[in-house]
């Protein structure tokens, strides 16, 4: 909906949709202060009856060439800070998506491997859900980072350590039959 004027005082007068019962924060390259304002208004109007949900907390999205753009986690943090409440996070490392998979496909965690390139999302989720975890090095994580966590005394960092690693998932081919 178009904003009724140039300033936040105007935006706070725009009518709110009476049917809104949740604010969902995902990756939004058109994120703006005006949207943040509207999110805050819905959350204050609804209180606990208005859900605050974030798709994930990734800080950065890597691009080719080694640069990165801000991730959804930044936008979730902005809304959480303004509203002074915590979002329910759907994505890894939280287990909600694993629960969705389990309910559709009858997975046995003891016989399932989680394959990923990020320690704080893929591997942490796999470990938390009782899966065997396999790190591939074709993405954001280096072996040095893993060793750092492995050698630390901190249990939180230990939970980021995968069971196994490969340089690439192509390395799995020889283990599979003809």
């Amino acid at each position, binding site marked *: 909906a178009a904003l009724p004027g140039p*300033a*936040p*005082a105007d935006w*706070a007068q725009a009518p709110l949709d009476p049917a809104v019962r949740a604010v969902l924060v995902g990756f*939004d*390259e*058109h*994120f*703006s*202060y*005006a949207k*943040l*304002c509207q999110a*805050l*208004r819905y959350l*204050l109007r609804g209180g606990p009856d208005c859900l605050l949900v974030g798709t994930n907390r990734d*800080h*950065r999205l890597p691009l080719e060439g080694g*640069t*990165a*753009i*801000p*991730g959804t*986690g*930044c*936008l979730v*943090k*902005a*809304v*959480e*800070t*303004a*509203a*002074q409440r915590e979002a329910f996070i759907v994505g890894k490392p939280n287990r909600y998506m694993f629960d969705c998979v389990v309910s559709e496909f009858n997975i046995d965690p003891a016989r399932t491997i989680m394959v990923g390139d990020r320690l704080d999302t893929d591997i942490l989720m796999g470990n938390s859900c009782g899966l065997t975890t396999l790190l591939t090095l074709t993405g954001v994580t280096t072996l040095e980072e893993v060793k750092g966590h492995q050698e630390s005394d901190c249990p939180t960092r230990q939970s980021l350590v995968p069971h196994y690693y490969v340089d690439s998932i192509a390395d799995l081919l020889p283990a599979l039959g003809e």
Partner: protein
Amino acid sequence: GCSGGGGGMASCRRLSGAGLREVLGPAQGLLFDCDGVLWAGERAVPGAPELLERLRRSGKAALFVSNNSRRSVAELERRFSRLGFRGVRAEHVFSSALCSALFLRQRLLGGGGDGSGNGRVFVMGGEGLRGEVRDAGLRLAGEGESATAEPVRAVLVGYDDQFTFAKLAQACGYLRDPQCLLVATDPDPWHPLSDGQRTPGTGSLTAAVETASGRKALVVGKPNRYMFDCIVERFGVDPSRTLMVGDRLETDILFGKNCGLSTILTLTGVSRLEEAQAYMASDSAAAKDLVPNYYVDSIADLIPGLDE
């Protein structure tokens, strides 16, 4: 009496009657927050202009310390006048916009440089904030740069109602240089609007920049001490003879505690008395620092404590 907020726990006593004279009598000066204390939106708090006038007549100093980074101190001087406050000059007003500019001038120019070859500042904020940074002798990124422009040496996050994802991405680009400072004008998560709604504050925007960059911002505004240091440098106040008056426990009252000032909470703004009492009842040491020494319903209630 008016001893500094250092010793003993604050007990949130209502200030009235004889207590008013005991507390205000020895005070040499008062520091006031602005929004929610002197005015709410475009309306002065009833009696506030008279209080300032009575302070002047009693020979007590009144200085102003605000986390609001929207306006330049020149604009604030005009606002004071427009809302009926007499005799307040820009030099009496310490906004987070001004103090952020002073902070950056110190860090980037080493206090007194001529601005050349010392890097630029990427400002995420409105024209009031941008103007204060320019007035401090700093150059802004995004204004007349050439291919050989100096590096961006600081990202300054303020109240920015034109904040966008694109600006956030731009800030992160600059912050990839570990030499580039990340500074925030204030930590406020939201501000009240006159109809009871809230608008997001600098704190929420800073959280986005911190998350994307993996850096922690240096926060200039209350409750941190820097703005008090600016006040002391310009006016030499004695904390043990100065009172801090504010409406927000987490910024104004904690600021008073951090600077050794006795604190007065006024109830015309953000914080409710119940919140102060809850902090007082809490077991946590950090919570105790948010308890004011005194409270009043409005700063107009201080008037009887001053000589006629």
